[in-house]
């Protein structure tokens, strides 16, 4: 704020008017800038059609999502034509209970199958109809008739947890959900946790306590136990692990490959190493091109040549980062201390030796720390690129999201991604700190 003008003596009035002018501009800035930002946000509010969005939003989807992340549902489904009842976790074939077995909250008494839901709710399947006891409301009875569903409700006005149409009756309470259509009657029963996370129902180890499992493992079954867990069809742990490895691999190959490509080019683009303007400009334009053509475009172009997969992703990262590294490296090289090179030169070193002993030791810590920083952030980018090019955890994530039913798997993937990214962050942080403080001279 101190604008020293040691020139001609200024009159007090002059100073005063100048100070006032400065305050005016400052005030204008401090009010004008927020006003401008606000105006822009208002424009964006309408450009993004936020009012329309609020209309179109489906909060119930959000509720499903949140509920799925910490709970699972078991479907009890009756085919109304054959009368056959199946029990399946998440309604998936892979989670089906084997023939003749059922969860312990179901009881079968002759023709009548009773499904006990929490909070005193109960659904009974009779051969020709279904009854649902809702405490505090009464019993709903429904049967499939001709082309639709015929249901009888307790007297009184229709409560809003029932949605009844001619061919479909749906009762959604906080204890579960019952859907009756002409062809099938379905009950969803929710429970906490991620069911079948370790073992599917067909595995002999399902439902075993950790202690019992451990004793089995020590008595020579560790291989089978691991196998059943690793090839769990519901959660596909081995595929997920591979996808994570692919994602990290994309980031690793891309980042370090880019560093290897960019280093020699950076020498060519640095003012103090390449006196030739043409070469320097050429290299810089190559860097600009690599960076300017974004990873998105590189991914699309490369996917055409190499097909989907981790290689395409890593090449896309490699190309984009060659541009970024080239620019950053050449800037670092331009700031190199000439004295050390001079010293090495005085011992009669040749050009290559001067670079090796005079330049590389100076810049290694800086460059490596930049590379490590990029490695960490590229782990995240690799997830996104994977979703486009079809490789790694990004692909699994988008697939699970597009089917819009396996939200617990989506949660599982998200947790894994976040853990991996944080691990990379932590690792590269440690390495960077070690590079900057102490041990800085350790290069290869």
């Amino acid at each position, binding site marked *: 704020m101190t*604008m020293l003008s040691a020139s001609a003596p200024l009159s007090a009035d002059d100073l005063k008017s100048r100070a006032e002018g400065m305050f005016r501009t*400052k005030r204008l800035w401090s009010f004008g*800038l927020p006003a401008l930002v606000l105006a*822009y*946000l208002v424009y*964006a509010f309408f*450009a*993004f*059609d*936020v009012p329309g*969005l609020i209309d*179109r*939003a*489906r*909060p119930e*989807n959000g509720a499903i*999502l949140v509920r799925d992340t910490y709970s699972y549902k078991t479907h009890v489904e009756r085919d109304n034509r054959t009368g056959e009842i199946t029990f399946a976790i998440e309604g998936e074939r892979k989670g089906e209970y084997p023939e003749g077995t059922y969860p312990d909250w179901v009881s079968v008494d002759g023709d009548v199958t009773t499904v006990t839901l929490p909070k005193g709710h109960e659904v009974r399947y009779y051969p020709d109809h279904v009854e649902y006891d809702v405490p505090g409301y009464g019993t709903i009875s429904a049967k499939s008739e001709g082309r639709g569903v015929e249901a009888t409700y307790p007297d009184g006005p229709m409560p809003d947890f029932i949605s009844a149409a001619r061919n479909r009756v749906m009762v959604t309470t906080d204890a579960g959900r019952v859907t009756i259509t002409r062809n099938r009657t379905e009950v969803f029963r929710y429970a906490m946790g991620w069911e079948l996370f370790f073992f599917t129902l067909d595995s002999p180890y399902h439902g075993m306590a950790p202690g019992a499992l451990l004793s089995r493992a020590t008595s020579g079954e560790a291989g089978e136990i691991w196998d059943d867990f690793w090839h769990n069809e519901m959660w596909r742990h081995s595929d997920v692990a591979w996808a994570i490895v692919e994602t990290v*691999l*994309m980031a*690793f*190959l891309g980042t*370090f490959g880019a560093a290897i490509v960019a280093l020699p080019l950076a020498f060519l683009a640095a003012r103090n190493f390449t006196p030739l303007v043409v070469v320097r400009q050429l290299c810089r334009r190559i860097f*600009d091109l690599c960076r*300017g053509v*974004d*990873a*998105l*475009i590189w991914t699309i*172009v*490369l996917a*055409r*040549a*190499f*097909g*989907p*997969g*981790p*290689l*395409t992703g*890593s090449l896309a990262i490699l190309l984009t980062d060659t541009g970024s590294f080239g620019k950053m490296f050449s800037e670092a090289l331009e700031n190199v201390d000439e004295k050390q090179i001079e010293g090495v030169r005085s011992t009669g070193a040749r050009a290559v030796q001067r670079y090796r002993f005079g330049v590389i030791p100076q810049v290694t810590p800086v460059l490596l720390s930049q590379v490590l920083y990029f490695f960490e952030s590229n782990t*995240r980018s690799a*997830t*996104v690129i994977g*979703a*486009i090019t079809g*490789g790694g955890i*990004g692909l699994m*994530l*988008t697939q699970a*999201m597009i089917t*819009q039913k396996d939200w617990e798997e*989506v949660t599982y993937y*998200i947790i894994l*991604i*976040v853990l991996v*990214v*944080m691990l990379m*962050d932590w690792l590269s942080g440690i390495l960077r700190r070690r590079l900057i403080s102490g041990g800085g001279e*350790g290069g*290869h």
Partner: protein
Amino acid sequence: MADQTAAPAYGSATAHIRESYIAQTRRKRIYGAVLLAIFVALMAGGFITADERNAGGFWEGLHQIFDFPAAVLSEAGEKIGRLPENLLEYLPALIETINIAAVATLVGAFGGAVLSMLSTRGMALWPRLIPLWRRMMDIMRAIPEIVIALILIFVLGGGPVPAMIAIAFHTVGALGKLFSEVNENASLKPVDGLASVGATWTQRMLLGVVPQVAPNWLSYALLRFEINIRASAILGFVGAGGIGYELKNAMAWGVGRYDQAAAIFLLLFITIVAVDQIGSALRDRLTHGSRKDLLA
């Protein structure tokens, strides 16, 4: 490095120093060689694995690498007359992409600024909560944008807002960390001075800290804006509107629409390069340029 005060056996001491120096160098070289070998093995192994798991191989694909750009360029070349029309057609989508990035950067910078002040020692409103805010920023940074975008698209439906929120969320974490690093170097004297006259926390931060750190904050925010434009284009590709979405559609049509794909490529390229150049010029001025601009 070694203790050289012992003068008597001078010759043997230098020999000793020399020996230990050579041994040290040798050890260092061996470490270096081992590290290098591990690194080369990892790169080679990684490349082979990636190559195996890719749909098309590296060597088979290498000579086709220019096929697609050539196809796009030749088709765009044939319909060169339609280029201005195409560019104009996709301009609104481009503006949407830029808007997403801009709003996300503004919101993210605001959130990041607040979080950074809450998590800097000496400035924090609740010093005990510093670790909490830090961990929160770590998590915000760790979640890839695409995850949040896809979840929000499921809940809110497609469009620019999910992408904007997703990018803003990430930006809060990223800028928060950078901002708090800037804050650590800020002098706390103005803050103390303001505190002594009874200023509230908001006043202390706005009048005592912000003027000191604003240039560096702005420079980081500009850098983030560049990154966010790329992110917003990519998120469009997975369904969040903007130019990425148009690009996906043009690509899905394939041959016959390549002139449009070329126009989109061109728009995106120009935008990224322009923002990059303008941004770096501005940042340069902010960090070491004319000092009178700092008052802004």
